[in-house]
């Protein structure tokens, strides 16, 4: 078996909060609570789950933008936690990120050309200025923009065009891994499909590997090879796309899938929905046992007492549920 490009083992990230003025109120946000997964070269792993479940934090830990509380992250064979700043810088070039909001992630005072040229210059990927300009034009072309766009400022572009610039900026570093954090959520429906197609084309062309974070399950199914479902800091289910969507084993995954309305009124009229009770609990004070048990339609006594481990129920299909 080929070695994974990225391996994440027992990743934990806690944020201490409170203290400050009102001492004693301090607590800890258990944003990521023991997450394990790997991604093969050229693969797309989808990461889904509701707001606050720890998707972005997981991505930021992988990118080393956040110092993990504990756990191991192995990228291109190197364990990141032990690396010197110097080594880390080189390794990090090979992992890039595309953000949800293309507007706030682009410097409004720089032209698109400068936004793309700067990292190439800083990291000395291309030192000759003329060649750098050529590289910028090439990047623009690769993401479906024109050379003229290099002279524009971010506010002179539409949302979809700005996201293309975000993609080009990630490509500029010739990464092997791109963490895509909700790359299409802020875009109009008609533009989302353009960007998804672009990401897929680029993946095929450059052999890219994606960690694709999103809350839209239809989009995630389309783009991912395998999908991990998170709930309150934990992965509750992980499987290849087909198995996850056709035979979900975790009651939370099933509820998520049933909550997605399908654009077909005839189908919807016949469709039963599992509507979950209650709200997502706070990661400051997660429930005992299985964190999903207070909302789970099939919970039994054991679920509030014992944390279920993520088990391989069928080959390649993992679930953290006592009843799976």
């Amino acid at each position, binding site marked *: 078996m080929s070695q994974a490009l990225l391996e994440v083992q027992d990743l934990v990230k806690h944020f201490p909060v409170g203290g400050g003025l009102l001492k004693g109120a301090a607590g800890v946000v258990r944003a990521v609570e023991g997450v394990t997964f790997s991604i093969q070269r050229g693969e797309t792993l989808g990461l889904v789950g*509701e*707001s606050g479940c720890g998707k972005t934090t997981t991505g930021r830990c992988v990118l080393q933008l956040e110092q993990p509380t504990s756990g191991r992250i192995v990228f291109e064979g190197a364990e990141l936690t032990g690396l010197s700043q110097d080594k880390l810088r080189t390794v990090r070039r090979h992992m890039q990120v595309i953000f949800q909001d293309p507007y706030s992630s682009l410097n409004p005072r720089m032209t698109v050309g400068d936004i793309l040229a700067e990292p190439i210059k800083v990291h000395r990927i291309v030192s000759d200025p003329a060649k750098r300009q050529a590289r910028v034009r090439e990047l623009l072309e690769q993401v479906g923009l024109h050379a003229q766009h290099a002279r524009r400022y971010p506010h002179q572009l*539409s*949302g*979809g*065009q700005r996201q293309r610039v975000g993609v080009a900026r990630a490509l500029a570093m010739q990464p092997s891994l791109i963490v895509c954090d909700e790359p299409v959520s802020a875009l*109009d*429906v*008609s*533009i*989302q*499909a*353009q960007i*998804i*197609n672009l990401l*897929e084309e680029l993946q095929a062309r450059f052999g890219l590997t994606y960690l694709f974070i999103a*809350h839209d*399950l*239809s*989009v995630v*199914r*389309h783009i991912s090879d395998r999908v991990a479902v998170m709930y309150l800091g934990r992965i509750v289910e992980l499987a290849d*796309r087909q198995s996850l*969507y056709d035979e979900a084993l975790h009651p939370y995954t099933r*509820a*998520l*899938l*049933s*909550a*997605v*309305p*399908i*654009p*077909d*009124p*005839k*189908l*919807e009229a016949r*469709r039963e*929905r599992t*509507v*979950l009770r209650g*709200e*997502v609990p706070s990661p400051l004070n997660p429930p005992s046992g299985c964190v999903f048990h207070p909302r789970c339609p099939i919970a039994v006594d054991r679920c509030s007492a014992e944390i279920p481990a993520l088990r391989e129920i069928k080959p390649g299909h993992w679930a953290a549920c006592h009843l799976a």
Partner: protein
Amino acid sequence: MATLLDVRDLKTTFLTSSGVVRAVDGVSWDIEEGETVALVGESGCGKSVSALSVMRLVDEPAGRIESGEIVYKGRDLLKLSEEQMRHVRGREIGMIFQEPMTSLNPVLSIGRQLTEGLEIHMGMKPPEARSRAVEMLAMVGIPDPERRLGQYPHHFSGGMRQRMMIAMALACNPSLILADEPTTALDVTIQAQILELMRDLARRLGVAMLIITHNLGVVARYADRVNVMYAGRIIEQASATELYANPRHPYTLGLLRSVPRLDEPRRARLDPIEGQPPDLTRLPEGCAFAPRCAYRVERCGEVPSLVALGAGHRSACWEAERLVKELAA
């Protein structure tokens, strides 16, 4: 069923530094009693402004309702005094806003926000208003409503605030609710809770509803009839079943084809609508969708009007017949 709200040729504009924005550019739609109608379309196409115009809450003086009629129960709302309009907003038409925090008062208790309207518009005495408030909170599924009355909006989660908005909108027994993206800011499982709740309540209380959304799945599940907007105009109008089965405008067709669907086998590639949504201050002559349209012909330089193509089905496209033939083939 009788027509409850009839919007006729409504035009609303905004004066901005980059020119006049024709946010709503001559739209007509209606809602019958007890019915749920959807307004769908992409960001900036004029959905919120349409609803705000009905409530006469358009930001003045930059924003202006230029012309048209908004006939509610036989009266043109545009001809009412501000005083009369306040009564309509309080009693007749409830609104649920896109972002609940902007429409809840952060320094007023949950209880007071509910009882105020009940006292003013329903003439209730404080104890009566209070018990009605408790009843409303319980109805929208807020646990322990008695205790909640003394809390403030920041004590509520996003989902609970949205429930609170629904309770406020329904408190005075309105005939119509305008729900502007009532669940877009919420999580998928909470969205499902809220939408199911709204549908059940609307059915039980016989309230008509306008749902504004960009989610085609939401429309399919909850709407009886649909208006598709593009760049300030309605480009297609039909019953939900008809619209999804037989789209008759290239934009609607494009939207339906561009979204991946969980109920269908995964496609190798998505079919996006090419190009960008238009800038409302620099609209092209003629059909605003033409620059992105695969069916474009010379005639698209003229604005196509919304014409009937069958029972209750209207499309604003010169090439609608060709589209229908091609889809049938």
